[in-house]
């Protein structure tokens, strides 16, 4: 068995097992996690949500349009999660759509009759470099009362 200390590998296939006894890092893995802090109360501006708090951002997924649009840098399968809280004081049922290139896919709804009703959607997508994702408030309002009440997370699963 060959022992290699510091090695550069290019275009090499590993046919069987791959084992690492210490740390494994992928600093360029496409990922981002953001939040919307409305500074209290309900958020009712329909359209792509302009997220204003960065939870994790390694610079791989481009943010644009006032942090409402997230463009993936490379082809692959991406896991997208959105979660938030609704509130009966926010009026009508809130609807958040996960969108790919402007097309609605999965939907998170908050029930207007529930004080702290949770709303969430998770789905994987096959995306190409340049495709973009957003979380669109389609109707109603969500309780983006503070940074801890919602998350929009994207990471490349493969």
């Amino acid at each position, binding site marked *: 068995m060959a022992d*290699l*200390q*510091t*090695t*550069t*590998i*290019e*275009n*090499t*296939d*590993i*046919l*069987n*097992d*791959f*084992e*690492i*006894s*210490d*740390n*494994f*890092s*992928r*600093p*360029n893995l496409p990922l981002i996690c953001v939040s919307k802090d409305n500074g209290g109360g309900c958020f009712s501006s329909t359209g792509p949500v302009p997220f204003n708090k960065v939870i994790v951002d390694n610079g791989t997924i481009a943010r644009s349009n006032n942090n409402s649009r997230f463009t993936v840098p*490379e082809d*692959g*399968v991406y*896991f997208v999660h959105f979660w938030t809280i609704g509130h009966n004081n926010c009026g009508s*049922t809130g609807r958040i*759509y996960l969108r790919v290139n402007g097309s*609605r*896919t*999965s*939907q*998170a*709804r*908050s*029930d*207007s*009759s*529930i004080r702290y*009703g*949770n*709303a*969430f*959607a*998770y*789905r*994987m*997508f*096959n995306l190409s470099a340049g495709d973009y994702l957003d979380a669109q408030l389609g109707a109603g309002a969500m309780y983006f009362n503070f940074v801890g009440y919602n998350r929009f997370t994207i990471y490349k*699963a*493969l």
Partner: protein
Amino acid sequence: MANLKNSTIESVNISGNLEVLGTISQSSPSLISADYSSNTSYTATGPISHNNSYVESGFNVENSRSRFTVLEEGLYYICWHNISNSGANTTRTRIYVNGSNRSQARGDASGTYSMVTAIHLEYLQPGDYIEMVHTNGTIYMTSQYNDFSIQRIL
């Protein structure tokens, strides 16, 4: 420093840290992302047959996409969300592994758009199978309102 280029390696054991700056690809990843659509008042009990598939790789998919049998040993992340419809009974949907309940989502019968979720993590062996099972109540089952995803993460 050693360099490997255009090589084939049988197995690799790294005793220190590994940093990958580029992408990692797998020839047979284990990923499923699917949903069920068309019935807004879904009452059928039993494993849910998913009629939309967005990502499907690395599982033996059986029984009209209601059973996903694991092909590779590993740690699997399983998640589900749906909306329960208002009705007489609280909704219950369960993540089953090998026919046994692991994680349960319950929706309030009084809510029109009561969203529910269940998440589960488990080490599985080849031949183990995963199902999303509906046992009670009425689910608001349009494509946008539910997603069932499985990812082998380790």
